[in-house]
């Protein structure tokens, strides 16, 4: 995986709660056994109407064309455990998702694919939604900087290490399981 250091980008505001993985990648695209190329199906049913981009959907707004940060509402990634949802976000170009809460399996799937999910308070999320300029996410310092805002975020220590070094979770855990337990223990808050 590509190491994750700092991401600076316009953030795409997806103003919907309870976005489930079926909306992230509809089920008709699950019958594929490759792991790549899912970006074209991201939010497919919202993005397209009969194959034509819907003008009223945020991903089709040219202002967000090169965005690497997705702003989402409560309980993002709920529903089915399909990892294709994260594969699609990553393939499309999103490396960060910021929300107030995430569904458990989706949250874990993110780290395994180099995507950083960040939980923030309602207030902060609201402010981020109102910002039109670039947002900077720095994993090393665990901070978000944007127009008039600077906040820190929490991340489990071993997930941080994996993202920073671009390690593959499966390779890491194969070799270092006792280390992960120690690492978490020593950094337990």
């Amino acid at each position, binding site marked *: 995986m590509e190491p994750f250091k700092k991401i600076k980008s316009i953030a795409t505001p997806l103003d919907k709660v309870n976005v489930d993985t*079926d909306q992230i990648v*509809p089920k008709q695209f699950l019958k594929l056994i490759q792991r790549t190329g899912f970006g074209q199906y991201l939010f497919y049913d919202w993005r397209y109407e009969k194959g034509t981009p819907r003008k009223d959907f945020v991903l089709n707004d040219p202002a967000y064309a090169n965005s690497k940060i997705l702003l989402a509402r409560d309980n993002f990634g709920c*529903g*089915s455990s399909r990892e294709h949802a994260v594969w699609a976000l990553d393939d499309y170009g999103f490396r960060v998702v910021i929300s107030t809460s995430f*569904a*458990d399996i*989706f949250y874990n*799937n993110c780290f395994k694919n180099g995507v950083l999910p960040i939980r923030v308070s309602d207030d902060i999320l609201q402010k981020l939604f109102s910002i039109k300029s670039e947002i900077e996410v720095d994993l090393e310092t665990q901070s978000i900087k944007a127009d008039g805002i600077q906040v820190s975020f929490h991340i489990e220590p071993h997930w941080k290490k994996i993202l920073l070094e671009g390690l593959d979770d*499966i*390779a890491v855990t194969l070799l270092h399981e006792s280390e992960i337990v120690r690492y978490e223990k020593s950094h337990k808050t």
Partner: protein
Amino acid sequence: MNITEKILARASGKTSVSPDDVVFVNVDKVMVHDVSGPGVMAVFEKLRKKGMIIDKIWDPERVWVAEDHFVPAADKISAQNIVSLTNFTKQFGIKKHFKYGMGQYGICHTLSHEEAMVLPGEVYVGGDSHTNTTGALGAFAAGLGHTDVAYVLLNGKIWFKVPETLFFKINGKLPDHVMAKDLILKIIGDIGTDGAAYKTMQFGGTGVSEMSVESRLTLTNMTTEAGAKSGIVEPDQKLRDYLAARGVTKYDEVHEDSDAQYEKIYEYEGSEMEPIVAKPFSPENTVVARDLSSVELDKAYIGSCTGAKLEDLQAAAKILKGKTVKIRTEILPAAMSIFRKAMDQGLLKIFMDAGVVVGPPTCGACCGAHMGVLAKDEICISTTNRNFPGRMGHVESQTYLASPLVAAASAVTGKITDPRDLK
């Protein structure tokens, strides 16, 4: 320790664990189906490209495979998907593959209990979010993403952060017109779709000990809709009898200590429960069924791992006996073994006499894949577990979640109907 902590402690070789501890546990059973199987294959492919040799898995005897989301194949790609899954099980020597059209098969979470694939005290993981269901058998059961399942298939282990437990104490039996589905919808409405995020939901109290094992499975099934890591019920004689009827008597039950701790205890009075319906577009959007009596429907769907077990079909038959449905109605038993019992008990005749279509076991329209999906603006009452936009078909269709009693009563009237109000 509570039951979840004790199972995780035992599986990780520790004498004691507490919430938030990270533990590496030995896994007893793993399940993949026709969505997660190909997902795992994709992860294996990625690892192979990095030079990893994957020619065997940890223990083929502990892995089982279900075909449920895309059977019967509705198109060429679905058919190809099953071929890929079959090649996968052959390649790695997995013998327990429940194949469509070859005897017993069905929805993975239904097979887990119908076939006693998972036993009390075990750690069970599956490539599906409703893996939680099987916690009603007194096991730790949790869903994983494809990378995690791939990891378990290679190593037989996985790490978990020990979850906090929310205990739901149900005092007294549910009334006859109320089912476990109503209770779990009520709970989700109260705590919200992320009310149990990263936590275990444990169910107990006299209301749960009075319940059948199938009803308990409905409770644990929908813990997923409250965001839970797992759901669990402590083993008792009812569970032992249920497993004995399936030829299994040897297992190592885990019971909680007398000083078990829970993060929070919620109490519900069984006798006060009412038929509940979750409105579109979230399972937490709950109201009493009677408040929706003016909602006109296009379809009733009785199916899925949540609402097509034998007692769910029996409940529907109780309502449909001698009646005719007013809207399109489908009943899809969740496994062949249940389909057969429904036939032996005369339930299929009742359904057909009422005008209902009875179909083969499949996740089918519950996940909007095929077999009766909804058109734009269509409104469905369903015994399934999710009603997010587009879940059962068109993104502008609507699904109301309900118990089999409510769904069947509504099929008869064409409007959302509390079973008590059916004349």
